[in-house]
């Protein structure tokens, strides 16, 4: 080979190399640092798992098992729902309940306890008959139990599990689940009974709007006229009915998955159940505060059935006037023997 021939061959090879380089596709910027995959063929398992997950499937597969969605091996929306519940719902629910509790605490520190107007009179008047108090406390006991077990199920994985450990928490979680499912239907019975007893007294009446505009007199010292139940109590009553029915019905959908409801309905029921329960718990904090720490003399209406006359006159003046019918003859001296005397028959007994 002559030198000229050798140079021509080198040039030809260089030209060919240059053309090949020009024709070769440029690597994508994002892939510059990624190592090249040694496998140039697709993962043979990907087709299998794509089929199992049915990501591309129009409908479900077939199965010998007969039931709702038994043809679906892996529910895609389940993972999305799980992420939503864990990452969004639980945190916000906890913040909301904590915020309401904090606001109540601040309100108490600013406003303090509302005393009985003009102090205790020494005479008491009957407000709630035994059956009403029995139903109220039945509802309250069931609610507190359901709230505690429900909060354990909702927050336990993040709050109790790190403290107690997996073994102890699994016991508590199992007990909470069984107890929650067992007592849930009883709560529905309790609120229906409360509805029967108290719905008529909680219908809107004259003075409700005025009471609302004045904020019930809780801010400031102005007295706002009210009947047996004031507007705030009426709002709470209907909230209990609405939220109670919501948590009960959604709870029944979850506890009895035998009526053809699929995963989407169950997921929706769980979210509705959770939102209603969190609102219910937050509202109950306000109810408990007003009934115990916030207002002097209120709790005894539900423990003894009697309230002080001045409490009745100060907070429920229209009911007081109706109950006493213009006189104090149906009020009794506040002595220890009062509870053993024949009960007073006020309008509460006729309900």
């Amino acid at each position: 080979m002559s030198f000229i021939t050798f140079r021509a061959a080198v040039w030809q090879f260089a030209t060919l190399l240059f053309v090949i380089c020009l024709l070769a596709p440029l690597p994508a910027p994002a892939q510059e640092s990624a190592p090249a995959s040694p496998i140039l063929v697709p993962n043979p398992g990907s087709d299998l798992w794509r089929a199992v997950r049915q990501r591309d499937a129009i409908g479900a597969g077939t199965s010998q098992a007969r039931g709702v969605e038994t043809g679906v091996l892996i529910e895609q929306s389940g993972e999305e729902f799980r992420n939503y519940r864990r990452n969004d719902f639980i945190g916000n629910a906890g913040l909301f309940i904590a915020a309401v509790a904090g606001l109540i605490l601040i309100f108490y520190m600013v406003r303090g306890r509302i005393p009985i107007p003009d102090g205790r009179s020494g005479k008491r008047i009957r407000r709630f008959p035994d059956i009403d108090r029995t139903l109220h406390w039945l509802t309250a006991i069931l609610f507190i139990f359901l709230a505690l077990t429900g909060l354990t199920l909702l927050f336990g994985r993040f709050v109790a599990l790190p403290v107690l450990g997996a073994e102890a928490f699994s016991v508590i979680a199992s007990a909470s689940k069984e107890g929650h499912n067992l007592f849930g239907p009883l709560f529905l019975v309790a609120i229906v009974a409360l509805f029967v007893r108290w719905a008529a007294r909680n219908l809107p009446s004259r003075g409700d709007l005025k009471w609302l505009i004045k904020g019930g007199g809780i801010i400031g010292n102005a007295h706002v006229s009210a009947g047996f139940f004031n507007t705030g109590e009426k709002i709470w009553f209907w909230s209990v009915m609405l939220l109670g029915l919501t948590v009960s019905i959604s709870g029944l959908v979850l506890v009895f998955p035998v009526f053809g409801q699929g995963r989407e309905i169950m997921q929706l029921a769980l979210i509705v159940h959770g939102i209603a329960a969190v609102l219910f718990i937050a509202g109950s904090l306000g109810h408990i505060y007003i009934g115990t720490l916030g207002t002097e003399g209120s709790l005894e209406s539900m423990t003894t059935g009697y309230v002080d006359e001045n409490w009745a006159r100060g907070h429920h003046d229209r009911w007081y006037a109706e109950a006493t019918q213009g006189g104090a003859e149906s009020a009794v001296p506040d002595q220890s023997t009062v509870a053993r005397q024949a009960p007073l028959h006020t309008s509460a007994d006729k309900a």
Partner: protein
Amino acid sequence: MSFTEFVDGPFWYFSAAVFVIGVVWRLVGMLTMGSKPDYSLPRASGTAGAIGINIKRFFPRTDFWSRIKLQVIAGYLFHVGLFALLFFAAPHIDFYRERLLGFGWPAMPEWAFILVSELAFLGLLLLILHRMMNPVTRAISNRGDYIGSALIFLVMLTGCLALARAYEPLRVLHFFLAELLLLYFPFSALMHTFTFPFSRGFMGAHYGRRGVRV
């Protein structure tokens, strides 16, 4: 000895022995107490009166119905529910077969177990609350009544919490509380479980001999 071994072993035998001996002792004591001889001519059969009142007392008097319907309904819910749970719940039948009798009987289905539990709890809660809320029942109730009610409630509650039958601590807790109940039973008003036919019979015979319609 672990707590589980203690509850399943010595404490179980001790509480069961106290229960059996205590109940027998009280029943024998009551039945051998006797009564003053009645020399008057009977106007009617004392035996018929004893049997009659035992049956009639299962039904509320109509003239009292409006005032006692809560106690009657709640009482039946609780007592019938507790009886069904005690003798027809699958875990209890397993226990009787394995630990006591050597044989069992058909259990009620799961849905019936849940329904009966709900009704029994509703009845028990209403009865406890009525005892606390009504001035008369509150006045005649003593500490023993509340202890008995609370123990039964806790035994039922822990039993239902252990419904999954997957966690040993829940079963042991239920068993431990049931043993406490067995220990307390003979010395409390819970003895009415066994004494009610005799007390009713005594009153029925007493009235029956005098021709009193009850």
